[in-house]
Structures are given as C-alpha cells and as structure tokens.
C-alpha cells in the first residue's frame, strides 16, 4: 500500500479529513481526482496554510497538511504554535524530506531542528516512522488521535517486519545487553546494518525504533539504561533538542545514569550531496556507525574485554 492509497481510503471513510498542501505534491499527486475540493492547495504559502488548517479544524475538519519539513516547521512555526498549539486543534502536519532526506538541497532545506521545535509545543505529538510500512501503520492512529501531530514523512522501503504500532510505544527489534541503539526515521536501516556488524564482533546489541517521539516510550529507554553497557542515539537532527535531550529528561526524572554516545549533527548543517554520499561523508553508514560505537567502547577502559574480541577489520579503523 502507498501513502496516497491510505489517504484515499481514510478520506473515503471519514469526511472530516481534508488534505492540504503548500504546493508540495510529490506525496499526494494522484489524489486530486478522488478528493476534488477536499484537496486544498494554497500554493507556496505555509503560514496561510496553517492558519487555514486551524480554521478548518475549528469547523470539525481534520486537516492533513503537507509541506517540506523545514518550511512547515520553521517558516510557519509561530502559526503552528499559536493557531494549532494554543487551540489544540487536530491538525496533522506532514513534513517532507526531513533530516538527511533533503540530500543535495543545502542548509535552507535541512530540517534538523523540526523535532525539537514540534515537541516543544505543548499538545503536539511527534512521530518519525522508519519506513513506508512503519508510517502507514502509524497514520490511522495519528489521525484518530484528538491531538495535533507532526510526522516526519518517510516512504522509503522497509527492511524489517514491524510490530503493531501504538502511540507512545517503541519497538525493540533485536535483543542485547552490550549496546543499545536508539533511533528513528530512515536511519534505522543503517542501524540494523551496524547491529549485524557489531554482532559479528561478538557484541549483543538492542536496536530500538522509537517511532513515537512524543509521547516517548520512557520504559524502553529506562530498561535499556539499566540493562546495557552503552546507549547510542542515532538521529539526523541537531544534537540540541533531539534524542540526547529526550534521554536527559528521562534520566533526570527517573534518577537514572548511563553512558551515552550521541550520534547526531553537532551544531552544524550537513554537507549537501546525494544521500549515499551524505551518509558516507557524515559517518552515518552502518559501518561508520559501527566504528564510532567500537571507538566509544574502546575509550572506556572498563569495557576493555569486549574489545579484545574485535576482529582485525575494525581494529584497523580505530
């Protein structure tokens, strides 16, 4: 099933749902003939779109709103916070090409603070599906929720079979106690590749697809902090306001302590290029993540015995 097919089914079933876009039609190109007036394209006017979405929601509609993640969450930020946030109206914000997915566009298009911004607005829920299957499983729940929501759009093909989706719940894809990797969005693909490599090194690795970033699955994070030697966060987001911040909030609230390796963008935009070149350059491929994780373990002498088992392949990188 595609995103468009799902929206067609939902709009056919529930006439409260309307689809809006600021002339970003890549994800909804085929809908116009089926939706007619219920597809509202306001042109490249993100602020007007959000105000209008609030007006539609005020009249009982559930607007599903599309724009590039950066222009949606940044240009229209005050409209989202004021018209959608303060009202708490069920406007569903769909941000396209978030994070690394803006590949060759450059910093103007790099949504790397979208999650920090959206989770900072009191009633807004935040979701970052790892692939198309994950997104389609989540959407009916997101649309059924009475709260406004922000979704990092991701229709890339799935590499795993997901567990059923529930708002506020993460999915644990592999079990392990040496390393726990917490991630969201399409980088799950690279994390799973890293898990395979780490397992080959004799390390057990717990891969956690967070999916729902707000509400956040605090239990799965607390368990990982208790069970695992090293926690690694992997995200295509600025380190500020992303997973490091979320973990810190959970740890402070629960008086937990853990060794955490944050893998994120450290106060800079990423080098624009095609996606594969970006991942290579920025060190987010499965093998680059593996090297970064092994290096973190090596730097902590308490974990020395783990490193003795490492293959020569990775020793050469360290």
């Amino acid at each position, binding site marked *: 099933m595609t995103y468009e097919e799902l929206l067609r089914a939902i709009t056919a079933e529930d006439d409260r749902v309307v689809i809006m876009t600021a002339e*970003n039609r890549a994800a909804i190109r085929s809908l116009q003939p089926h939706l007619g007036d219920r597809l509202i*394209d306001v042109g*490249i006017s993100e*602020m007007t779109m959000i105000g209008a979405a609030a007006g539609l929601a005020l009249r009982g509609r559930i607007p599903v709103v599309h724009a590039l993640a950066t222009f949606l969450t940044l240009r229209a930020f005050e409209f989202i916070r004021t018209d959608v946030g303060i009202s708490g109206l069920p406007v569903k914000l769909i941000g396209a090409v978030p994070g690394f997915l803006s590949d060759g566009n*450059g*910093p*103007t298009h790099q949504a790397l603070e979208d999650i920090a911004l959206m989770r900072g607005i009191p009633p807004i829920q935040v979701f970052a599906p790892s692939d198309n299957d994950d997104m389609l499983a989540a959407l009916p729940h997101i649309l059924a929720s009475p709260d406004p929501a922000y979704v990092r759009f991701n229709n890339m093909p799935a590499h795993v079979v997901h567990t059923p989706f529930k708002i506020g719940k993460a999915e644990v894809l592999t079990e392990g106690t040496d390393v726990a990797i917490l991630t969201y969005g399409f980088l799950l693909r690279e994390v799973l590749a890293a898990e395979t490599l780490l397992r080959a090194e004799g390390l057990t690795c717990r891969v956690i697809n967070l999916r729902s970033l707000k509400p956040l699955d605090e239990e799965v994070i607390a368990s990982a902090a208790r069970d695992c030697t090293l926690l690694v966060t992997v995200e295509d987001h600025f380190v500020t306001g992303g997973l490091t911040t979320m973990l810190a909030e959970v740890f402070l609230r629960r008086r937990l302590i853990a060794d955490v390796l944050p893998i994120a963008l450290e106060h800079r935009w990423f080098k624009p290029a095609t996606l594969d070149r970006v991942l290579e350059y920025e060190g987010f491929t499965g093998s680059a993540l593996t090297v970064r994780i092994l290096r973190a373990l090596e730097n902590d002498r308490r974990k020395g015995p783990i490193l003795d088992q490492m293959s020569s392949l990775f020793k050469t990188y360290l």
Partner: protein
Amino acid sequence: MEFPHHLKVQSGNAMNASDKQELQQTAIRVREHIIRMATDGGCFIGASLSCADLIVYLYSRVLDISPQRVSDPGRDYFLLSKGHDVPAVYGTFAELGYINAARLANHLHTNDSIYWHPNRDIPGVEFHSGSLGHLLSVGIGVALDIKLRKTSNKVYVMLGDGELNEGSIWEGCLVAGAHGLDNLVAIVDRNGFQANMRTEDLIPLEPLEDKFTAFGWSVRRINGHAYEEMEAAFTGHPFEKGKPSMIIADTVRGKGLPSIEARPDRWFVNFTAEEIDMLLDELHGIGDAALKSESLYVR
C-alpha cells in the same frame, strides 16, 4: 587565463550585433553547463533554463562587478531569490571567470559546495537561498545601506513567479515602496509555472503589473529572452525617481530544449548520461531528445 572583456551598459556602450552574438554564444555554453548538471542526482533544469538569458545578460552588460571585485563594497549586488535556478548562475560564473568550469563536475559531491541551491562558498554568490521569499528582504537591507552611505551602486533581485505565492514577497514590496528604494531592481522570471503546474491554474498572479504598481513600484514588462528588450529596460532604471523598479520578464520554462519546454513535469529531473547527450544535441539543433527518465516534480 584571459576572459572576454564585457563593457557594461551603464558605461554608455550601446549593444551592437557582435555584442548580441557574444551574449547568445555565452548563453548556449551556459545552457550546456545546466544540462550537464541535470544528471547524477539531477537539478532544477526547467527554471534554470528560463532565466539563463537574463542572468548571462545581467552579468555581461549590467552588473558593475567582475571576478576581481566580488568583495568591493561599491559593486552592484545580484541576489538570486529563486535559488533553485543556481545552475544558470554557476554556468555564467564558469563562462565569465568567477569559478573554474571544471568545478561544475563536482555537483552533488562532498568535495565541493556546488549543490541545488546557492551558497557563499562559491565566489560571486552574494547570499544563500533556496527557501523562497527571502532575498527581496535581504536586498532591501543592502539597498538601505547603500542609501545610507550615499553611493550609487544598485541591487538586483531575481524572483520566481511561483515564489510570488510567499507572503514575505508582498511585505517586501510594501517596504521597498514605502522607503522609495530606487536603487533596487527586482526581476520576475515569469516562466508561467510553479513546481507542479501553471501559476494561473493554482494561485493566479495576473494582472501582475497592476499588483506591483499598487504596491509602489515602477513596472515594465519585457521578453526575458530578447536582449534588445532587456537592454531597453535595464538602461532605463530607475523608471521613476523615488520608486523601486520591477521588471517582469516573460520567459519559457526549459527554454532552448523543445522536449522539456513549458512542460509541468520537467521541473526537477535526474537524467541518464545518454539523455544528457541527447539534450546537448537538441540544444544544438541536432534531433529531438527521447526522454525516458521519471519526472521528479518536487524535492
């Protein structure tokens, strides 16, 4: 390396037949550069081709700037607000000596800063863009400072017609009119399309002259592929003292390549190497390109 000497209009040299021929030849080479950037990741080819003649003309005959004077505070400023057309600027920069043409092969590689939108790592680029509706405001700031310093240089801002959807453009139009910025010239690349469709089928813009006039600008409308019409407009500004000047340049999206001209589905495209060869042939009038690549509408 010797670069062609470009006599600027404002130094009083009327355009003659050989000037025009040189402009046309430069524009052909710029279009070749644009086409070559439309593979291995692709680029916004349609809109780059629509403003290529205007950008070649501006850098060749209007803007008081040169590769040696990119930091001179007395230079004219060119701001590309519709940043996705940057292949037209980089192609022009390569032809006029601002950058080495070999760098264009680094498009979308991590060893350079040549990607889908402009940035100031490239000499000659005044400001980054890509998010629409920003550089009219930035241009207003530069124009205000030039007024404060009482110098005679000018600010040129290239806008897209789809970009006129953004509210910030109209705020900028009000502010520029209110401040009487007659050292500011905005150009609308009126190619008739936004990303997915004709502008008039989505958010109609016409009558466009009337809108800008009502906002306090002095407006002219020209054919954005005809150098004589550009010459007449760009030698005559400010059209009215105490008002910013607006030039609406009617253009064709994809100009120069019949197989992609004025087609809504050829906005952003990532062509194969074979298609690039066909398009280069088509540019030179050798056959029509049979394009098979999937059209990519929106990035």
